[in-house]
C-alpha cells in the first residue's frame, strides 16, 4: 500500500505570554479573520484551562466553537533574531465574516509560512542574477542598480511603450500603489497587465457600463435572500466560507448555472433548488432566455425599470464611454433584443442544453411576484465561469437580468462577482489609455494586449511582480517560445560584475532582445527564466490593507520576519523609482504608504485617515481597533468613521444621468462568430477549467504543503465515464491533452499546445466536456487556452479551450489519490 502523510498526534498550546496578532486569510476573496499566536519554542506551552492559555478558552474545544487548534494550524519557524518560534494560526471566532469557520486553505495558513524546517524553505531569499545561464545571489545594491539601469535605458530610448509589467491586483494596497505609481504615473506605460491576463482590460466592464459596480453586496445578503443565483462561481470550492457560512442552511433556494454537477449543484438539487447544466459557453443565451420568460410574463420590476433605467436614447449616448454609446439600451430596446427567436424557451433549450421547464422555473423563482405582490429577493453571484467565456456579452446578460428584477442595493438583493483572490488594487492615476495603441471593436483605443507587443519586439524590459505568465498567460506554450526567443536574442550576461551585467543587458535590448525581471516569493517557471530575480516579503511578513468580496477592509498585521533578504514589494519598487530619478517614493513604513494611497484605494479609504487624524491616532491604529474591519468606501461624517454595507442603496448609478442602462447582450455578430470558431470538432473535447477547493492559485504555497499536495500530486482531468470507457481510460491513468487548433487573433491561424493530467473519471462532467485545474504549475492548462482577446474589453475566453485526449499510460497515482466523487451533498 501507499504511504500517507501524517501530522503529529499533539499540538502545542499557546501560553498566555504568546504574542497575539490579528489578520485575515492569505488566500481567497472571502477574507476570513484569523488570530496568530507566536512564542519561542523554548517557552513552555500553555495549559488546558482558559486562564492558562492564550486563547482564553477551556480545552478541549467544543464542536463549532472555532477554537480548536488542529495540527494543520501549527508550524515552527525561525526569525531574524535566530530564535525558533512556534506559530499557531486559528480562525477568528469573533470576526463577522467567518465566526470561527474556515476552508481547507485558510485552516492550513500556518503550513504555508516560511520555515527552514519544511518544504517552504526554498523561498527566494536573495536577489539573483542570471550569469552564464545560471542564477547567482547578488547584493540588493547591485540588483537595484541593474533593475533601474535597464528600465531607465528602455524608457529614455524607447519611450513608455518600451517597458511592460504584470502585477498582482491583491497583495495589499500598499504594494500595488507603489507599483502603479512607478509604472502608470511616472513612466506611463500602456503595457500593464494583471496577474491573470495579459492586459488591464476589466473583467466586469459590461457591469460597469450598466452603471453598476463590481462588488456591490454584503455577505449577509445571502442569508436574507429568497434565491441565490450562482453563475459560474462554484461557491463551495471557490468562496468556501461564503457558501458554508452564509448560503448553506439559511433557507435561500439555490440556482446553480454551471456545465458541471459541482457540489453547489448537488446541494441545490437536494434543497429544492435548480442546477442549470448548460453547454460550455452558452451562458449569455441562457440568461437572455430567462429574461425573455420574465418579460413575456410581465414579471419584471416595473417600478424599478421606470424609475431607475434610462428611458431616453439621448441619455445613453450623452457620456463619453464608447461602449455605452454602442451597446447601451433602454428597456424598450432590450425587450426588442429579447425577441430574437434564439431566446424562445424551446430554441434556447436546444442551444444551451438546459431543459425548457428549468428555464421557465428559474425565471419564476427569481422574478415571479408572490400572491401578495411581493417580489422574490434574488442575489446574483457570478465569477470566472461567466467572465472567462465571451466576456462582454456574458456579463452584460447577467447584469441585465439583475436590473430587470431590480436586484440592486437592497437587503437580500444584488449582483456581485463572487471573486477569486481578495482585492487590493490601488493606483494614483487611471490606466494611461492615451499611450495605448490597441484598437477595439469600432476602432476605439483599448488597453494593450502586452504579449502581442512583446512578440512584435516593442518591449525591452518586462517586469513581472507576483505572477507567473510563462505558465499562466493565454496560449502559454506559444508565449514561452516568444519569451525564450526574446531572452536569447543578443548578448547574455556572462559576468557577475554589476556594470558588465548592466551593459550586456542594455546591449541585448538594443539588438532587439528583451530583459526579464521577476519579483516573487518562491521560484517558479517565470523566475527561472528571468535575468534578474527580486525576493519579496509574503503574507504575515509586512503590514497591509486590502478588502474581501463585500469590500471589507482590515489591517493584516505582520507577525513574522521576512526570511533572508526578502523585502516588501513597495520598498523594492520605491528603490528602483528613486534610482531612476523619480521623487515621492521616500516612504519609511507600510503605514506611510497607506496614508498616501487611502483616497486611491480600489474603494475610497480616505475616511480612515481623516478619522484617525481627528482622534489623534494613526490610520493603522484605527484599523487595528476595528473588530471586523470596515466596508469601503469609508467616510468621515460628523466626527464618525462610517463604512458602506452595500452599494447603490441610494439608487444613484454610475452614468452621466445617474440612471442605469441595459447593455446589448445579444448572441449575434461577434459573440456568435467567435463561439463558433472556438467549438470542438471531431474527436476534440471542450476543455473547461477552474479551481479546486484545496489548491490556491499556482500553488506557490500548496506545492510545499505535504498535506495538501498529497490530495493533488498532479493536475487532474475529470472525464465522463462514457468518454473514459470509449478512450479506454480509468482513474489514475495519465492523459495528454493536446491541440494544434488553439484559436488566435487571426481567424484560421492556430497555435499548438499540450499538457498532461491524471484522469479522474466522474459524471460530474457531461460527455464531450472535460475539466482541469486552471493553474496547476508546470502542467499548465493555459498551454491550450485561446490567444484571443475580446475587442470590447481585452480578456480571453480561458474557459473555452479544446483538445484531443490521449491515454499515455497508467500510474501509481491510482493508489495514492482519492477518486471518490467530489459532489456528495446532503
Amino acid at each position, binding site marked *: *500500500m*501507499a504511504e*500517507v*502523510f*501524517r*501530522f503529529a*498526534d*499533539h*499540538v502545542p*498550546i499557546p501560553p498566555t505570554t504568546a504574542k497575539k496578532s490579528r489578520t485575515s486569510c492569505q488566500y481567497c476573496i472571502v477574507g476570513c479573520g484569523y488570530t496568530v499566536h507566536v512564542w519561542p519554542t523554548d517557552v513552555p506551552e500553555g495549559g*488546558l484551562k482558559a486562564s492558562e492559555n492564550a486563547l482564553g478558552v477551556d*480545552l*478541549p*474545544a*467544543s*464542536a*463549532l466553537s472555532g477554537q*480548536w487548534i*488542529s*495540527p494543520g494550524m501549527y508550524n515552527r519557524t525561525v526569525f531574524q533574531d535566530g530564535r525558533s518560534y512556534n506559530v499557531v494560526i486559528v480562525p477568528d471566532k469573533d470576526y463577522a465574516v467567518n*465566526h*470561527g*469557520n*474556515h*476552508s*481547507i486553505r485558510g*485552516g492550513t495558513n500556518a503550513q504555508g509560512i516560511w520555515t527552514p524546517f519544511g518544504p517552504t524553505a526554498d523561498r527566494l531569499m536573495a536577489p539573483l542574477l542570471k550569469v552564464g545561464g545560471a542564477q547567482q545571489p547578488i547584493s540588493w545594491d547591485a540588483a537595484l542598480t541593474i533593475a533601474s539601469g535597464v528600465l531607465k535605458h528602455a524608457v529614455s530610448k524607447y519611450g513608455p511603450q518600451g517597458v511592460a509589467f504584470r502585477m498582482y491586483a491583491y497583495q495589499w494596497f500598499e504594494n500595488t500603489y507603489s507599483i502603479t505609481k512607478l509604472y502608470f504615473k511616472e513612466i506611463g506605460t500602456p503595457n500593464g497587465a494583471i496577474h491573470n491576463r495579459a492586459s488591464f482590460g476589466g473583467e466586469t466592464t459590461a457591469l460597469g457600463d450598466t452603471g453598476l459596480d463590481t462588488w456591490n453586496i454584503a455577505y*449577509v445578503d445571502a442569508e436574507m435572500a429568497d434565491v441565490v443565483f450562482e453563475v459560474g462561481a462554484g461557491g*463551495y470550492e471557490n468562496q*468556501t466560507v461564503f457558501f*458554508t457560512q452564509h448560503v*448553506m*442552511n*439559511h*433557507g435561500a433556494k439555490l440556482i446553480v448555472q454551471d456545465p458541471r*454537477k459541482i*457540489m453547489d449543484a448537488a*446541494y441545490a438539487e*437536494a434543497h429544492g433548488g435548480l442546477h442549470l447544466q448548460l453547454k460550455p459557453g452558452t451562458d449569455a443565451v441562457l440568461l437572455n432566455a430567462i429574461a425573455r420568460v420574465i418579460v413575456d410574463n410581465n414579471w419584471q420590476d416595473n417600478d424599478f425599470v421606470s424609475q431607475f433605467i434610462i428611458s431616453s436614447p439621448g441619455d445613453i449616448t450623452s457620456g463619453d464611454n464608447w461602449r455605452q454609446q454602442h451597446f447601451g439600451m433602454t428597456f424598450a430596446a432590450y425587450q426588442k433584443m429579447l425577441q430574437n427567436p434564439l431566446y424562445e424557451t424551446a430554441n434556447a433549450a436546444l442551444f444551451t442544453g438546459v431543459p425548457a421547464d428549468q428555464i421557465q422555473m428559474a425565471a419564476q423563482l427569481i422574478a415571479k411576484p408572490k400572491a401578495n405582490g411581493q417580489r422574490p429577493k434574488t442575489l446574483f453571484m457570478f465569477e470566472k465561469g461567466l467572465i472567462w467565456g465571451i466576456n462582454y456579452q456574458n456579463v452584460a446578460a447577467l447584469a441585465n437580468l439583475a436590473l430587470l428584477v431590480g436586484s440592486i442595493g437592497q437587503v437580500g438583493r444584488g449582483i456581485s462577482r463572487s471573486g477569486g483572490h481578495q482585492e487590493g488594487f490601488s493606483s494614483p492615476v487611471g490606466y494611461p489609455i492615451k499611450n495605448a495603441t490597441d484598437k477595439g471593436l469600432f476602432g476605439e483605443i483599448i488597453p494593450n494586449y502586452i504579449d502581442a507587443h512583446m512578440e512584435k519586439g516593442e518591449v525591452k524590459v518586462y517586469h513581472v511582480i507576483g505572477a507567473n505568465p510563462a505558465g499562466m498567460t493565454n496560449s502559454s506554450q506559444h508565449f514561452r517560445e516568444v519569451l525564450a526567443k526574446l531572452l536569447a536574442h543578443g548578448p547574455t550576461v556572462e559576468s557577475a560584475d554589476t556594470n558588465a551585467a548592466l551593459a550586456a543587458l542594455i546591449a541585448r535590448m538594443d539588438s532587439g532582445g528583451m530583459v526579464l525581471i521577476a519579483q516573487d516569493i518562491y521560484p517558479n517557471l517565470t523566475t527561472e527564466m528571468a535575468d534578474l530575480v527580486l525576493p519579496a516579503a509574503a503574507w504575515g511578513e509586512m503590514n497591509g490593507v486590502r478588502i474581501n468580496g463585500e469590500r471589507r477592509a482590515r489591517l493584516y498585521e505582520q507577525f513574522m520576519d521576512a526570511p533572508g533578504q526578502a523585502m516588501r514589494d513597495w520598498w523594492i519598487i520605491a528603490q528602483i523609482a528613486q534610482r531612476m530619478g523619480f521623487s515621492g517614493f521616500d516612504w519609511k513604513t507600510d503605514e506611510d504608504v497607506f496614508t498616501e494611497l487611502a483616497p486611491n484605494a480600489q474603494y475610497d479609504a480616505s475616511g480612515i485617515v481623516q478619522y484617525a487624524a481627528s482622534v489623534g491616532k494613526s490610520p493603522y491604529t484605527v484599523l487595528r481597533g476595528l473588530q471586523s474591519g470596515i466596508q469601503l468606501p469609508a467616510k468621515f461624517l460628523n466626527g464618525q468613521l462610517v463604512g458602506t454595507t452595500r452599494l447603490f442603496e441610494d439608487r444613484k448609478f454610475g452614468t452621466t444621468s445617474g440612471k442605469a442602462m441595459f447593455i446589448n447582450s445579444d448572441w449575434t455578430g461577434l459573440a456568435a462568430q467567435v463561439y463558433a470558431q472556438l467549438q470542438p470538432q471531431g474527436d476534440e473535447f471542450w476543455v473547461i477549467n477552474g479551481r479546486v*477547493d484545496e489548491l490556491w492559485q499556482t500553488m506557490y504555497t500548496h506545492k510545499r504543503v505535504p*498535506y495538501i499536495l498529497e*490530495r493533488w500530486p498532479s493536475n487532474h482531468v475529470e472525464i465522463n*465515464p462514457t468518454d*473514459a*470507457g470509449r478512450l479506454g481510460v*480509468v482513474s*489514475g491513468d495519465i492523459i495528454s491533452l493536446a491541440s494544434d487548433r488553439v484559436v488566435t487573433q487571426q481567424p484560421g491561424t492556430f497555435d499548438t499546445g499540450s499538457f498532461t493530467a491524471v484522469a479522474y473519471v*466522474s*459524471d*460530474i462532467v457531461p460527455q464531450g466536456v472535460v475539466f482541469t485545474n486552471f493553474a496547476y504549475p508546470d502542467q499548465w492548462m493555459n498551454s491550450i487556452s485561446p490567444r484571443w482577446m475580446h475587442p470590447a474589453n481585452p480578456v480571453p475566453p480561458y474557459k473555452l479551450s479544446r483538445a484531443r485526449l490521449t491515454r499515455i499510460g497508467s500510474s501509481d497515482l491510482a493508489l*495514492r489519490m*482519492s*477518486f*471518490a*466523487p*467530489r*459532489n*456528495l*451533498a*446532503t
Partner: protein
Amino acid sequence: MEITPTPEPPSGTPEPTPVSSPHMTRRQFLTYTGVGVGGLVVGGAVGAVLTRVFTSGQTQVLTTYPQVQVAHLSDLQAGKPVAFDYPLKGQSSYLIKLGKPAIDGVGPAGDVVAFSTICVHMGCPLAGRYQDTYKVLGPCPCHLSTYDLSLGGMPVTGAATENLPQIELSVDASGNIFAKGVWGVIYGFENNLQPGTAVQS
C-alpha cells in the same frame, strides 16, 4: 481503479435539520447529533457514540496509548461499521471492514481500519455516514466534508485541516482486534490522551 460514477445522495441519510439563525448554535449542533446512530456497538470499549466528554473529572491521566480490544475479526461484516471509543470515553470511532485493501489496514485482506467519527473541520458527527460504495465517511452534515477511509482518512472534499484521525490497529493470532494508537489529533483535543476518562483496557 474502477470507474466511479457519481451517485445519487445516499439513501437513508437523514436531511440535516434546517438552521434558521445565521450561525449554528450549540442546540442546533445537538440536533445534528441526533442523526444516524448507525454503528453496531461491541467489545469492551463501549461508549456513548455521539456524546463528547468535555468536562474534567477524569479518573486516570493517560500518558501512552492503551491497548484495547475493540472487536474480533468474526464480528465484522464488510461495509458494516462497529462503533467504539478510543482512547478516551467520548472519542467516538468506527471500526470498518472496507472490503478493499487500505492504508494501514489490518486483517487477512488488509482491509480493516478504524477512524474517529468526529469531523476534523469543526467537530460535527460523522456517525451513520459511511458510504460503502466509495469507502468514504461523509458528507458531514455541517459543511459537507467527506473522507476516504482507504487512503488514511484523506479528505475527498471539505475543509478539514488534517486527515480524519486513524486508529492504529493490530490483530492477534486468534483474530482479536486491538486499538493501540492514533494517527492525527482528534477534534477538540491538542493531545489525544487528555483530558478525559480512559476507556477500559
